[in-house]
């Protein structure tokens, strides 16, 4: 059968951001996919290295408009890791509240878009209306609907006013019944079942092999969640469930995200009711030389930040790895053999966020890509070797960690 190439992108109504999927199709069946990113490079890491540690938090917040708390959370944890300090308990609780509020709004946003991709615009509009409630909650706490500017190395910038708590509780109570209705609608609608069940299946093995993160991996039966696996924030203070399902199809990814929102509401409520007294900020004066790693379970999976300090007031190196970077390659496993009609929802199912993920790509004037992945890895290795020789380092601590040496 003749193979045709169906381009999705770089500009397509399906996408909010520029990225390019080249679907090779035979008739209506997708036989291969090539994902090309690199249209959106903004040099955030470099910008962060030019700012002070405190200012960087604001830059990092603007990596992504949706997970605008996940990146600062991971970044502040990395900076605190350099210094080896623990933030006050009240700050931890407030951080947790903000992070979970963001999870609800992010999952709702995705759910609406998923409806839109399936041609179900009523769901799209209803869900986004519901999202307003949680954005109101965030506005009450931080004064902003997005980009909350709540985080700083060593604590949080603003305290939660005790007078606001009843209003926040009321708003949260308003969300739950509508969420329940949505969950029932998804669970019982035969047409949604027909469009999502058994579509874009990511098996447990494939999920582990590709290193998928977050809801994408939890829908495939991989019980991995930074909030459970590491002790940070206030997550270990209370009882909540990690949602894991086993089928790995689009339907399970929807279900995981909806159920996670109930857990998030639970966590926020607990935090608000048990908010400890005390300081909200350590008032860190200077950052010692060293390197630190910070992680956080963003709505899309684990966000990873690496920060290196030389004792000055700005990071020498700041590396960001967004969860979408790990989830993108799973397309190779999920989309092959599916119909073009299902491609859009499968591409959307990992809840991709390209502005978090984007790194540069090198192209000639005709738009052809000059370096492929292998060449880039080789270049990177050469650079590391030269740097090590220049610095006289034999083996970095990270390399030891990778090789399993103590």
């Amino acid at each position, binding site marked *: 059968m003749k193979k*045709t*190439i*169906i381009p999705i992108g770089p500009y*397509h*109504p*399906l996408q909010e951001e520029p990225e390019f999927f080249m679907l090779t199709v035979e008739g*209506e069946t997708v036989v291969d996919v090539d994902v090309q990113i690199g249209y959106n490079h903004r040099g955030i890491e470099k910008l962060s290295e030019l700012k002070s540690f405190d200012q960087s938090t604001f830059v990092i917040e603007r990596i992504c408009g949706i997970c605008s708390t996940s990146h600062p959370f991971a970044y502040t944890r990395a900076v605190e890791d350099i210094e080896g300090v623990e933030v006050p308990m009240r700050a931890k609780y407030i951080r947790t509240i903000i992070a979970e509020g963001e999870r609800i709004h992010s999952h709702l946003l995705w759910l609406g878009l998923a*409806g*839109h*991709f*399936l*041609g*179900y*615009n*009523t*769901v*799209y*509009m*209803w869900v986004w*209306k519901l999202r307003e409630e949680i954005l109101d909650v965030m506005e009450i706490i931080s004064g902003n609907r997005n980009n909350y500017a709540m985080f700083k190395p060593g604590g949080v910038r603003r305290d939660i006013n005790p007078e606001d708590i009843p209003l926040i509780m009321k708003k949260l109570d308003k969300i739950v019944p509508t969420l329940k209705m949505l969950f029932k609608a998804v669970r019982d*609608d035969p*047409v*949604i079942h*027909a*469009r999502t069940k058994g579509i874009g299946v990511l098996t447990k093995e494939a999920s582990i092999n590709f290193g998928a993160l977050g809801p994408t991996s939890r829908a495939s039966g991989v019980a991995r969640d930074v909030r459970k696996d590491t002790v940070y924030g206030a997550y270990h203070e209370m009882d909540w469930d990690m949602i894991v399902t086993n089928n790995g199809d689009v339907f399970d990814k929807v279900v995981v995200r909806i159920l996670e929102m109930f857990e998030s509401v639970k966590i926020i409520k607990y935090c608000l009711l048990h908010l400890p007294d005390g300081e909200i900020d350590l008032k860190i004066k200077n950052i010692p030389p060293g390197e630190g790693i910070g992680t956080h379970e963003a709505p899309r999976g684990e966000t990873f930040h690496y920060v290196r300090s030389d004792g000055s007031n700005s990071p020498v190196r700041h590396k960001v790895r967004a969860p979408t970077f790990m989830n993108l390659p799973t397309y190779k496993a999920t989309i092959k053999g599916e*119909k*073009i*009609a*299902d*491609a*859009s929802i499968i591409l959307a199912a990992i809840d991709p966020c390209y502005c978090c993920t984007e790194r540069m790509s090198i192209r000639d004037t005709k738009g052809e890509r000059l370096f492929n992945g292998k060449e880039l890895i080789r270049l990177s290795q050469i650079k590391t070797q030269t740097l090590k020789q220049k610095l006289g380092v034999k083996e970095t601590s990270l390399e030891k960690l990778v090789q399993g040496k103590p």
Partner: protein
Amino acid sequence: MDILLTGVYVVFFPGFFTVVIIGLLSSWVDRKVTARVQYRKGPPLLQPFYDVVKLLGKETILPKQGSRFMFILAPLIGFVSISIVAVILMLRPLVATSFVGDLIVVVYLLTLPSLALIIGGAASGNPLAAQGASREIKLILAYELPFLIAIALIVYKAGFKIDLQTLSATSELGTVSGIISFIIVLLCVQAKLGFVPFDIAEAETEIMSGPYIEYSGPLLSVFKITQSLMLFTLPVFMITVFWGGIQFHGWELLWFVIKYVVILVLIIVIKNTNPRVRIDQALKFFWGFCTVLAIIAFVLAVIGNTYGIAWL
């Protein structure tokens, strides 16, 4: 004088211009009700007219690699055929335009807009348009079968009369088989209109409006008018065949408007409470569920006719 009057009927009222205006108003109703269902405000009353006028003033861009002649002709074929259907249906109560077999002509002409879409999509030389055209072909094959069985059932019940004048005299909604075939035709109309859940050929988030992708300016506006004409003509066709026809005097006119609004709102509600299905699922739905249901209705009608049971 008679010819002049008929000319006025055909061109102005209740013919071509009236139908276009009501069609565009219907598309406003569609957009407004959809918006209200989705917690939005919706467009102002004249928005569909603004859209058409705006598109008419825009540049027409013809694709280089496509067949230009067919690309320009396709929207006109669809527009002309649906206009003829609209005029035939609207003029029937006023002038004795009904001739033997006009039902066949109408059913035939009703498929032409879809065929025009296929021709236009294929002529534009765009892979996504070709994809949309191929989906439209499959969709036509899917819904025409139950659609024709349901129409045949009505013809059978009317004693093998194939003219609209006879069919419009009776309402079939008092019988079980009539209601079933009405529902089947309603679903087929949904597919003919290209509305969710059967907007497979256009599928904005999958193939970027499919066959329409290369169309711009006046040609696109012709397609838009064709669509809104269908939004008016198909319910009128359903009323004529299933629901006692249309009359233009006294309370009958009001009754016609109510029937029309009921069908229109049913279509809009179906549109807003479903996600889009895949083409293979649509095929399965029409050839499996709908066709079987249509055959059952036919059997019921035959039983009712043979044994004289009125409600079957």
